[in-house]
C-alpha cells in the first residue's frame, strides 16, 4: 500500500495554505500536482545540460540528446512498448489522438467507419468528426445501466467497413475501467485498428500496451505527475513507418530539396522542430517516481479511496446526492462524479417558452457546489468535463467531479463529504 502521508512530503504545493487552511486537491483527473523530484529534474536539465538536441557536435548537446532519448526509453518501458514499439513525444493526449486521426485517415474513404463510445472525452471525438467531411461514418457504443460499455452493441456495430475503434481506457467522468483487451480483440477480428485513450489509465494503474494489444495509445504527462506540454503516442515502428508525418520541419526530415523531402526514422519522423526536452526529462522523472511506488499500489490506493467514498455516500444519505459510475470496484477508477438534485439538460423550448412558469429543477448547480467546496479549500471540477455527449446521455447539464491520486487520504474523502453535506444544507431551496 501507499503511505500517502509520506508521499505528501514530496509535494511542496500541499504545504500551501489558503485562508490559513490546507488545500484538499481533488481535481487530479484534470491535472496532478508535481513532486519535488520532477521539478528538480527539470531544473537540473536547465542548470547543467541545456542545449539543442540531436544536431550538436559538442558534449553538452550529446548529453542533452542522451537525456532526452533515455527519457523516451524509460517511458516506453513504463507502458510496456516492447522492442517493436516506440513513444512519440507530443504535447498531450489530445495531440496524440489528433495525429492518429489525421494521418491514419489518409487510408479512409466514404463509408468507412470509426467506432467511438458515448463516454469519450472531446479529444477522442472531435478529431474523428473532422473525417466526416470525407464521408467517414462515426458510430458510438453506448453504456449499460451499470455504466459500463455495451460490448454486445459493439459486436453489432462492427462491420467489414469498420476501420478504427477508438475508446478510452478509463472514463474521466464515470471512472469506468473498460475491458480494453476484449475490445481490441473484437476490433482486430474485424480488421479494424484499436486506438486507446490512456490519459486516465496510465497515471493510475499498470498499463502494458503489448499485453492490451492496442495499435496506438495516447497519454498525457501532466496527468501523471509530469510537467504540462508533454505527452506520448505509442505505436509500433512498423505501423508508424507507413504513416505520413503529421508536421513538417526540422529534425523530421532526412533530406530536403526544393520540391520534395525524405523522412527521418520513426520516432523522429513525427517530432518536427525542437521538442519539449525539459518536458520529456520531467516526464521520465515522473515515471521513476511512479515506478518507485509501484503501479499496483497506486491502483489499490485509489481503489480504497473510491470504495471509501461510495461507502460514505451510502451511509450519509445526503438529500438529493447521486453519483454516476460503476459500483463494482473492479471496474471503477478513482473518480467520483456527482450532483445534488436534478440538474436538467438545457432545453429552451420545453422548459421555458411553453410553460413560462417556475422551473422545477430542485438541484444545486455544480458551479455553486464547486464554489461552496472551494470555501473549504476543496478543489473539485464542475461542468461538462469535456464530455458533452456523455452529459446528454446522463440527462444533466453538468456535474461536479472529485478525482483522487496518490497523495489523497481517507481524511480528504471525509472532508469532501462534509463539504457536500454543508453545501446541501446551505443551498437547498
Amino acid at each position, binding site marked *: 500500500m501507499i503511505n500517502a502521508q509520506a508521499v505528501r512530503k514530496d509535494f511542496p504545493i500541499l504545504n500551501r495554505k489558503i485562508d490559513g487552511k490546507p488545500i484538499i486537491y481533488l481535481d487530479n483527473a484534470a491535472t496532478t500536482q508535481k513532486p519535488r523530484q520532477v521539478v528538480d529534474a527539470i531544473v537540473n536539465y536547465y542548470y547543467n545540460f541545456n542545449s539543442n538536441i540531436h544536431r550538436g557536435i559538442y558534449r553538452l548537446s550529446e548529453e542533452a540528446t542522451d537525456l532526452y532519448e533515455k527519457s523516451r526509453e524509460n517511458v516506453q518501458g513504463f507502458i510496456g512498448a516492447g522492442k517493436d514499439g516506440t513513444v512519440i513525444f507530443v504535447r498531450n493526449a489530445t495531440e496524440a489522438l489528433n495525429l492518429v486521426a489525421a494521418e491514419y485517415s489518409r487510408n479512409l474513404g466514404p463509408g468507412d467507419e470509426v467506432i467511438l463510445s458515448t463516454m469519450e472525452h472531446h479529444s477522442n471525438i472531435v478529431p474523428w468528426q473532422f473525417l466526416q467531411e470525407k464521408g467517414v461514418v462515426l458510430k458510438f457504443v453506448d453504456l449499460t445501466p451499470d455504466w459500463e460499455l455495451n460490448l454486445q452493441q459493439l459486436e453489432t456495430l462492427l462491420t467489414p467497413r469498420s476501420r478504427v475503434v477508438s475508446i478510452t481506457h478509463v472514463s474521466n467522468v464515470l471512472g469506468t475501467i473498460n475491458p480494453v483487451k476484449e475490445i481490441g480483440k473484437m476490433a482486430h477480428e474485424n480488421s479494424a485498428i484499436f486506438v486507446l485513450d490512456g490519459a486516465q489509465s496510465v497515471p493510475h494503474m499498470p498499463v502494458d500496451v503489448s499485453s492490451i494489444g492496442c495499435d496506438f495509445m495516447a497519454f498525457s504527462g501532466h496527468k501523471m505527475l509530469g510537467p504540462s506540454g508533454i505527452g506520448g503516442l505509442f505505436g509500433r515502428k512498423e505501423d508508424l513507418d507507413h504513416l505520413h508525418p503529421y508536421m513538417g520541419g526540422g529534425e523530421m526530415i532526412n533530406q530536403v530539396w526544393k520540391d520534395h523531402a525524405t523522412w527521418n526514422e520513426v520516432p523522429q519522423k513525427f517530432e518536427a522542430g525542437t521538442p519539449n526536452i525539459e518536458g520529456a526529462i520531467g516526464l521520465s522523472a515522473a515515471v521513476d517516481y511512479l515506478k518507485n511506488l509501484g503501479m499496483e499500489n497506486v491502483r489499490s490506493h485509489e481503489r480504497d479511496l473510491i470504495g471509501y467514498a461510495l461507502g460514505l455516500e451510502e451511509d450519509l444519505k445526503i438529500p438529493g446526492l447521486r453519483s454516476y459510475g460503476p459500483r463494482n470496484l473492479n471496474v471503477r477508477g478513482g473518480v467520483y462524479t456527482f450532483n445534488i438534485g436534478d440538474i436538467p439538460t438545457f432545453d*429552451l423550448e420545453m422548459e421555458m417558452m411553453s410553460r413560462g412558469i417556475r*422551473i422545477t429543477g430542485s438541484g444545486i*448547480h455544480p458551479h455553486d457546489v464547486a464554489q461552496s467546496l472551494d470555501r473549504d479549500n476543496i478543489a473539485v471540477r464542475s461542468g461538462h468535463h469535456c464530455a458533452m455527449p456523455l452529459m446528454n446521455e446522463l440527462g444533466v447539464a453538468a456535474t461536479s467531479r472529485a478525482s483522487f491520486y496518490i497523495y489523497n487520504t481517507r481524511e480528504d474523502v471525509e472532508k469532501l463529504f462534509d463539504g457536500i453535506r454543508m453545501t446541501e444544507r446551505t443551498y437547498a431551496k
Partner: protein
Amino acid sequence: MNDDDLQIQLILDHYKEPRNYGKIQNETTSITEANPVCGDTLHFSLLIESGKLVDIRFVGQGCSISQASASMLTEYVKGKSVSDIKKIKPEVVLGMIGIELGPAREKCALLSYNALMKALAPYN
C-alpha cells in the same frame, strides 16, 4: 460572519426567493438567454410604456449567481426609464453580487445584464 458570508446570504435569499418572478401577461417584449455550457437560462418579460420600464419579471434555471443577479437586476431597473437603464454598466451588476467571482462565474452574473440590454436594444 464576515462581509462575504453576509453577501452570500443575500445571494442565497434572492436565489431561493426570487423577486419579480413570473411572466407579464400583456408584455411588450420578452427574451430568453442561456449559457449552453452550464445550462444557466433566463427568460425576461418586459412591459414598456412611454419609454419607461413599468414592469419586469423573469423565470430561470441555473446556479445561484445567475438567478440571484436576475432577481437583483429586476428590482434595480423596475420603474426606471429605458434610456437610464441603457446607461447601466456591467460593473453595477457585479457590484450587486458583491463577492469575488472568477472569469467563468462573471458570465453567470452577467447573463441577466446581457439579456436585458439585448431586449431593450430596439426601444428608447
